[in-house]
């Protein structure tokens, strides 16, 4: 091969080699930015307030969530559910039930004036800031989004169930139709469009309210300042972002 052809081949080869990584880089960056221009992920940090003093156990949230998010209807798959507590004394041994997760409300089973207190506690994914479930996922199929929602990548999940084991709150389940994990994702498809979650939308008493901790005008800041607020299992240090008002110490 004479030197001209040799030079040509070498230069063309180098250029070809350069275009491949350049194209790959561009594609990686571009596909990563697949967002609608209206919603700015980094300007939000989502959480929720649940007000025990307002929950009436109607089950609207449970039903609405199953409709909105196409959750399997069997009574052992819930993105959100409601528990009823019946507590005597200091609350070391509460009587707890959740018939079908509260899907059909709560048939009365206690008599008034029996010396105990009772109340409802809605439960959902706590959207933990230091979530133990994302920590254990072996492949990165569940993660904390930049705007504070803990989401699942259903195309990537192996269905190993490690995250289900690692969640202290029991909020995850395996969807039998996809064999991947599923859980409350804070109605991510709604909150990124300026709507509120399905459960908050259908709650008749305002016991559930979506909050944006990064929004200075969100009432959550004043609420947290003026109410006695609790998270579930604080000793686990999960950074839970679901704040309960008037949560009794007996709640598990």
């Amino acid at each position, binding site marked *: 091969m004479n030197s001209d052809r040799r030079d040509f081949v070498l230069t063309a080869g180098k250029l070809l080699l350069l275009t491949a990584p350049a194209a790959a880089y561009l594609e990686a960056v571009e596909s990563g930015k697949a967002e609608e221009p209206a919603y700015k992920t980094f300007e939000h940090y989502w959480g929720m307030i649940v007000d025990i003093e307002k929950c009436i156990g109607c089950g609207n949230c449970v039903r609405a969530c199953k409709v909105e998010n196409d959750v399997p209807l069997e009574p052992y798959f819930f993105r959100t559910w409601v528990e009823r507590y019946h507590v005597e004394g200091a609350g070391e041994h509460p009587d707890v039930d*959740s018939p079908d997760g509260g899907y059909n409300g709560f048939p009365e089973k206690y008599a008034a004036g029996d010396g105990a207190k009772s109340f409802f506690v809605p439960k959902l994914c706590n959207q933990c800031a230091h979530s133990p479930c994302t920590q*254990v996922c072996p*492949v990165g*199929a569940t993660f904390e989004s930049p705007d504070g929602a803990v989401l699942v990548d259903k195309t990537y999940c*192996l*269905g190993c169930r490690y995250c*289900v084991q*690692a*969640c202290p709150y*029991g909020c995850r389940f395996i969807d039998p139709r996809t064999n991947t994990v599923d859980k409350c994702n804070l109605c991510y498809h709604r909150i990124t469009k300026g709507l509120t979650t399905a459960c908050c939308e259908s709650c008749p008493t305002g016991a559930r309210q979506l909050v944006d901790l990064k929004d200075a005008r969100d009432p959550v800041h004043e609420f947290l300042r003026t109410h006695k607020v609790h998270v579930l299992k604080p000793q686990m240090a999960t950074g839970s972002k679901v704040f309960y008002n008037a949560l009794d110490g007996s709640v598990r």
Partner: protein
Amino acid sequence: MEEGILHAIQGYMYPNEVELQWSILIVLYPFTTGLVAGAFILASLERVFNVAAVKPTYRLALLSALAFLLVSPLPLQLHLGHPERSIEMYLTPHTSSAMAMFGFIYLWYLMAVLVLEIWLDYRKDMVLMARSETGWKKTLYRILTLGVDNISEESLRIDDKLGRFITIVGIPSALLLHGYVGFIFGSVKANPWWSTPVMPIVFLFSAIVSGIALVLLMYMLVCFLKGIPIDMPCVDTIARYLMYAFLVDFSLEMLDLIHRIYEADESFKSLDFMVHTRLYTSQILVQIVFGTIIPIAMLAFIQLVKLSDAARKGIYTLAGFLTLMGIFAMRWNVVIGGQLFSKSFLGYTTYKMAFATKEGLLPAILLMILPFVILWGLVKLLPPFDEEKAAV
């Protein structure tokens, strides 16, 4: 998931907890990897610590380890919702996940330790067989020797040195292999039955116990099948090491138990109730009484009273089986036990094990038989005893 499961609940469970997440297949996994680690530790006793008495079992221990290591990922694959995606653990491992990092430890141990060590130890035999065999066997051995025919003194000396080095590296690798499985459970703060710093160590020592018991039984069985006399000083030594390891393992488990009972934290009442009811048979009876105390007592008895060869062989066989049963029960009690109680500490569920389903008893049985089938093949391919070496 069965309709009936809701009726098997006692007390209150979070609705999503009713179904058990990890089945008997996940019980198999720590059991088989434990056998691997234990068998390897026994093999290394000879190679690194120069316990000459156990030399007859060296190769068999390595082959047993390999057979079980090859089968270990299979129950996991059957369990996964999407086994076709399992390669993601190697492509994008989440470094904070013990499960992901375990994939690499498994691979390291399989390739860099076990396969290399077996290859180096058997290389001379494989070359000899490549020379003397015919047909497809000849081709197979030539491939295994990577086409190299050299078995000069010098090359064998290099093999031996390298093999010794690999065994030394292999010991912490084996400790890591099974300690990591313990960590997979022990690091889950959400589950108080699992969450304890002592879990990796308990897993490791019970692995050593099970591996030693396995090699003990396999050695006696293979000798029996091939009509070779059992080397009594060898099995006596193995049984002694089994006893020592068992004493350490039992002490660790009792320490964990005593600690739990004494501290009696928020989970204690619920766990205590579970152990006394749903877990009573598998934990108290199978694991502790029949699976630990009785084998230890039998092995200790032999140290104190002189018995005939035949009596000792009988005791070793029985103790070996009880040990394996006990260690299997330990894995069962950890994995299944950890899911029988609610994280609300207010309720309990049941494990309904099906038979002929993807995660039922039948695949579990088949997966436990498979390593022995593989071992049979390996023993045929790479005979572990001197008596059968092909003539030069």
